[in-house]
């Protein structure tokens, strides 16, 4: 699992752990589910 830092369009920054080593500048779609987990999808 890789640790990545992401910035949302409203300026918020968050650190997430994902199984893929995304490059800098990659756009992701992140969904926060009710139980605290996240689903990450690759957009570009």
């Amino acid at each position, binding site marked *: 699992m890789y640790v990545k830092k992401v910035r949302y369009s409203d300026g918020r920054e968050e650190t997430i752990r994902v199984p893929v080593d995304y*490059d800098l500048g990659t*756009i992701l*779609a992140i*969904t926060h589910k009710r139980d605290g*987990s996240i*689903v990450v999808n690759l957009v570009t």
Partner: protein
Amino acid sequence: MRSAKFTISGVEYELISNATIRRTALDMISSASLTLPSRDVGVLSVGGPVSIEYADKVLFHGMILPDWNVAFSSGASTITIPCADLTYRLAHMVVGASVVTYTIGTDIGEIVYSLLDGTGIDRHYINRNTGLLIPGNLDVKIGVMRLTLINYLAAEYGCLFYLQYARVGATVVSYGRFDKYTAVVLEPEFDETVQIVDSSILTLNMSIKQSQSLYCSRLLAIRDDGETHEVGIASHGTAPFFDRVVQVNPGISTPIAEVAADYFAQYQLTSEQMTGMFQGVAINMFNLLDLSQISEVFGPIFAYSAYRVTDLTHNISGSSIVTTLVGVSPALEIWNTDVYKASTNLDSEMQIIQVIDKKIDDEKPEYAEVIA
């Protein structure tokens, strides 16, 4: 302390992050969605049995559907399992691989009994002698699904078809119920009442609405079987009237004046709709929700002390349950789809959109850029 019980493929699970159950009287396929840590899940097979119970009531019994998703997050991965009740099988099984003909005079209960064969639905409580006979040969084309035919018979003859879940010893069973609405309404779930009392159950919100979509002051019921043409009229007040016309199935032999009076009374009942969101209520479809103990609102505001549940969504998390429901007047005959739709004030398109919207609202994706 009340808690929820989940069984997947025969194995009982303790740690479920979240479960959602959705039931509505209109389309009758109930669905559920379970989210749990994926390391705790054994072998999942499509069609495997699933049951959800709360406070000793079975809220859902069905099967695993073929689409899951697994989500990764910090350290843990969870799996979301969508399920549908056994009506899903009826919607995905054809009546026959060749044209099937039911001969004139066959009891429609007998037809429904044969359609439930091989679906896993228990048929003990299907009434095979409803007394409603088909007036001519009924040919069913190739490819028509069993549920389509059952819904057609139910709507045409004033019957109701639904599944009732129950725990029988170590297993949970889905009983199929099909009968004239007047008989079905005598079943225990139509009488079962859950009472809201200020202190024990938290009412999150509740609203009552007057809707006029089926409003009329005169109703004309027309029955035309090709030979005789009958018209029944029911009204209140004086001219000018707001008229509504209803076509009656020639297979129903009740005197036309009675049919008109019946429809008229039903349409008047659709004007009041109740929606509410409660915590800690384990209630099933068609149960009655008794509001008479909520001192602040009962009396001048609510017309009835109890409402019949026709649409509900349970959200179970840990040991708490939040239920959103729609209730109608207990005397409303919900087999009649026009009356049902008017009482919930949503046509089926809107209801589908409502379900989709709810799923989308729950989890909206946000875009982010990887910066480190």
